[in-house]
């Protein structure tokens, strides 16, 4: 404010009128901008900053927003706010629990034997399982042009001419929008879309194993569709194939609010799939609407502009810049959970219990590919929450020796909050069990793997490369998932000793002993040459060098030489699929919170060599006893018996050591004090609706943290203005001089 005065006072006396004028203008400009907005560097408009708007970011452009295609977390972060599958995870509860979302109650399960007669769950030979879904009545889709009908009952926008198209760039450009009630047929339609091969749904092949009639249906409609395409010479993007005419034998629409899905045999995990976007309803009108060539040309497709029933609607989709969600005006009755607070959680999480969702009216996701601006903007208050990258880690978080983390004083001063949790994931170091050296099930081969497992010290790995953001894994099942056991009961006795209530990795001498017993004394082969093992990795980044040499060091402890073959990710995958690797690192994120989702990574039936490369058991572990237990465990519901079986399986795995049980990563997130109801739930994606923002606090802090520093401008102005006079003087002098002698300036070349 007092900028103007400052300028006036400091005006140099000798400067010309012109300069004074210029300075005045500049000063006024600064003065004006200084008044209108408190900060100059606010990347959003003032209105947005002053409203219930959540500012978030995405680092990778979402490629697919079509729920039957999308299968990556960055896409689900947006998609799950728009679409509503039948079920969702309870926001707060641990262990992760399913609850109805658009359903009136949890699906009702009926079992049938081979003769089609109803059976109990305990029946030894269940042939089918049937799920009955009952929808909540009165749920409306978001307002959308695809639903608009004219007076004659025809869809108004389903046959757009070029004239109408010329005014359309985005979905919101349509003048009229309408809605329709969500019915059972919409859920069934989504299933049919998934079956259409041309839609490239990633889970079609796995679902076809379970849903009765899906394989048959898929082949039939895909062929029919391909025929129609080649007859009409159209592409999949612009030709609508009416799926309403055909039915899947195992899926049945009963009435407006009820539908049934029939599963082959028993597959209790199916319910978890129903919380994923693949099973979200798709109105057929939208599918038909988006197949218009004129819209496809403008990148308006179901893949870019979703139509759902969720709390938000996507109003702007520019994957190169910004995604914007607005609250859905038609959103149904949905309230903040009133119970289920997990142990140790902040009780203030229940402050909003029972209130109608969502709280936040608008969400702006900005593209932020670089971690530097992301972190800076978070610190400036322009993002409400942030993850912690390893580069910003040690200025944000301090770790104590016991592994507990807390914020650094600088962060605490800003009022930043902090949450960390162990993710339901595992990062492991796998052996190829089909390999003649590290693979195999003989006692000697097993001992070699055990020796290596002791030698590769993942505690050290976690502290060096992850700043402690991980916990050492004892088996394949991560914490928070049924079958995981804490403390001594869960410890891997092959690699660890339980002393003083803590895990202690067995000393390297034991590994050496095991190695000798395995037939490689001091890491030498029988002929005296050192044992050489090969490790394949996709890590080729600048940081990976240190990591690879760390691995080499681990093997060197046993006298074994490790040869590293680093390639890019595509080629690495190729090699793993072809079982052409000896050792490799990989990871797995839970699709759903069931031990089956982790143990099936080691089930023989999924081994890559048994499935021609499409299986996910990359270690090719195939132990008949394990396989038998796995099949038994798979269909059980969580019970002490199931736990006992899982324990048995884990023990088998620990003895066989097909993986070096790496670690379960920890996610850390920071958020500002004005953001409320933050609770990490790695399986639930539709969590924006629970969040709330204290707008006043945000505005105040933002402006306090971002006051522009203006003295450099003043200095620069002084220098520029101050140099005008001497320059003029010098010029005059030169002119006088040059009249006397015709100057030939060649000296200037001599620099």
């Amino acid at each position, binding site marked *: 404010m007092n900028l103007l005065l400052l300028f006036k006072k400091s005006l140099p006396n000798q400067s010309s009128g012109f300069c004074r004028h210029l300075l005045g203008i500049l000063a006024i400009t600064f003065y004006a901008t200084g008044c209108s907005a408190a900060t*100059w560097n606010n990347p959003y408009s003032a209105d947005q900053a002053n409203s219930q708007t959540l500012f978030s970011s995405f680092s990778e452009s979402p490629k697919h927003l079509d729920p039957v295609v999308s299968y990556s977390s960055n896409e689900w972060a947006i998609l799950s706010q728009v679409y509503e599958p039948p079920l969702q995870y309870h926001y707060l509860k641990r262990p992760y629990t399913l609850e109805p979302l658009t359903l009136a109650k949890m699906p009702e399960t009926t079992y049938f034997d081979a003769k089609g007669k109803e059976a109990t769950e305990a029946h030894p030979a269940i042939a089918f399982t049937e799920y009955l879904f009952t929808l909540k009545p009165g749920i409306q889709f978001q307002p959308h042009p695809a639903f608009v009908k004219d007076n004659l009952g025809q869809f108004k926008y389903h046959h757009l001419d070029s004239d109408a198209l010329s005014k359309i760039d985005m979905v919101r450009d349509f003048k009229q929008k309408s809605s329709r009630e969500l019915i059972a047929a919409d859920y069934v339609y989504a299933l049919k879309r998934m079956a259409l091969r041309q839609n490239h749904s990633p889970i079609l092949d796995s679902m076809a194993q379970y849903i009765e009639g899906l394989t048959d249906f898929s082949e039939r409609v895909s062929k029919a569709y391909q025929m129609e395409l080649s007859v009409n010479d159209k592409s999949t993007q612009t030709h609508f194939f009416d799926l309403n005419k055909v039915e899947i034998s195992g899926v049945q629409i009963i009435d407006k609010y009820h539908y049934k899905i029939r599963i082959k045999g028993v597959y209790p995990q199916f319910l978890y799939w129903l919380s994923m976007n693949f099973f979200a309803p798709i109105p057929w009108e939208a599918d038909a609407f988006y197949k218009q060539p004129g819209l496809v040309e403008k990148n308006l497709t179901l893949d870019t502009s979703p139509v759902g029933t969720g709390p938000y609607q996507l109003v702007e989709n520019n994957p190169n810049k910004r995604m914007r969600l607005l609250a859905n005006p038609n959103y149904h009755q949905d309230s903040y959970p009133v119970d289920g607070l997990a142990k140790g959680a902040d009780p203030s999480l229940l402050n909003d219990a029972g209130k109608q969702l969502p709280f936040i009216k608008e969400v702006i996701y900005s593209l932020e590919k670089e971690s530097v601006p992301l972190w800076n903007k978070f610190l400036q208050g322009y993002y409400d929450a942030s993850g912690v990258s390893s580069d910003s880690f040690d200025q944000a978080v301090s770790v104590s020796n016991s592994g507990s983390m807390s914020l650094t004083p600088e962060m605490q001063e800003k009022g930043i909050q902090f949450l960390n949790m162990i993710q339901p994931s595992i990062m492991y170091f796998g052996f190829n069990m089909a390999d003649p050296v590290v693979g195999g099930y003989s006692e000697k081969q097993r001992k070699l793997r055990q020796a290596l497992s002791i030698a590769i010290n993942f505690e050290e790995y976690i502290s060096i490369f992850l700043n402690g953001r991980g916990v050492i894994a004892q088996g394949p099942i991560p914490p928070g998932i049924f079958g995981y056991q804490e403390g001594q009961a869960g410890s891997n006795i092959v690699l660890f000793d339980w002393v003083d209530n803590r895990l202690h990795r067995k000393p390297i001498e034991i590994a050496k002993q095991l190695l000798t017993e395995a037939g490689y004394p001091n890491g030498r082969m029988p002929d005296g040459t050192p044992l050489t093992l090969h490790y394949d990795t996709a890590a080729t980044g600048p940081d990976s060098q240190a990591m690879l040499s760390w691995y080499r060091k681990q093997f060197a402890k046993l006298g074994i030489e490790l040869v590293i073959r680093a390639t890019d990710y595509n080629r690495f995958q190729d090699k793993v699929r072809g079982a052409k690797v000896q050792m490799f690192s990989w990871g797995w994120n839970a699709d759903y919170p069931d031990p089956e989702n982790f143990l099936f990574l080691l089930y023989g039936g999924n081994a890559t060599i048994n499935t021609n490369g499409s299986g996910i058991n990359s270690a090719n572990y195939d132990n008949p006893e394990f396989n038998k237990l796995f099949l038994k465990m798979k269909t059980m519901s969580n019970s002490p018996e199931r736990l006992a079986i899982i324990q048995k399986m884990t023990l088998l795995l620990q003895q066989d050591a097909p993986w070096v049980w790496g670690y379960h990563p920890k996610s850390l997130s920071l958020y500002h004090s004005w953001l409320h109801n933050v609770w990490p739930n790695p399986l639930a994606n539709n969590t924006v609706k629970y969040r709330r923002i204290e707008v006043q606090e945000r505005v105040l802090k933002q402006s306090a943290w971002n006051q522009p520093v203006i003295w450099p401008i003043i200095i620069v102005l002084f220098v520029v203005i101050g140099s005008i006079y001497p320059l003029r003087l010098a010029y005059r002098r030169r002119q006088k001089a040059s009249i006397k002698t015709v100057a030939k300036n060649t000296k200037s070349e001599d620099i």
Partner: protein
Amino acid sequence: MFAYIVRRVLFALPILIGVNFITFALFFMANTPDDMARAQLGAKQTTPAMIQSWKIDHGYDKPLFFNAESPGLAKVQETLFVQESMKLFAFDFGQSDSGRQITADIYERMWPSLAIALPTFVIGLVTNIALALLIVLFRGSTLDTATMMVAVAIMSISGLFYIIAGQVLFSKVWHWVPISGYTEGWEGFKFLILPIFIGVFSGIGAGMRWYRSIFLEEMNKDYIRTARAKGLSDIKVLFGHVLQNGMLPILTGVVVVIPTLFMGSLIMESFFGIPGLGSYTLDAINAQDFGIVKAMVFLGSVLYIIGLILTDISYTLFDPRVKLA
């Protein structure tokens, strides 16, 4: 003139075919269609059936240069290279590997690129010429020598330093402008200031030296000496004669870059998070999205050739002695 342009355009055809050939050959040496399908379909549980249907959908099921299964001429015609090249020549860029319409994307991302490149170009040109004129006034003096030293120093600093230093200083420490981002309209002004400033500043060294040498050359011509001997002041000579005559080499020199302004700046856009064509290209390289890479290479080549033709035309327009045969 018209005949000349037609001839040049016809000459451009074999060049563009050559460009396409290089692009296709290089890209498919590094990637197989299967890799591309897998990259698009995601890592979890990709089955051969899915890969096959993806390849058919995107036209990657055909062989690259030679189709042994087809009869006669179709051996060459029914190939990825011919099919896709034909589409490119019709400026039908089709869909990217991830399924978006490339033409629509290019149209949309062109504006942010221009919003940076055009002001940088114009302001840079004006600043450089103005500074060069100022320096020519003081030619041969210590000021001249010192400024030229500074100019060489400016040239000798990597652009990355300017960007990093600019972001740290102006955004992080002084809170003047947002560190990165972009919006349309006047709101977007604050995002553009820093990249434009850095673009102009880093170009000052080379630009100023070049224009200075042009003006000096003009200054040493006989008619200027006569004019100055008659007692005309330096300023009058500069603005009256030197600037006017110096414009010809300047314009013909810069005309070639004007079309390529569309392509945007790779580095600047990715540092500042500007959704232009430069970052589009860079992303496509990183994601190995062939659909976009081939479209951008083709577009870049076309623009370059247009630039060459424009240069030739500008010679005739500014200098009546040059005739295009």
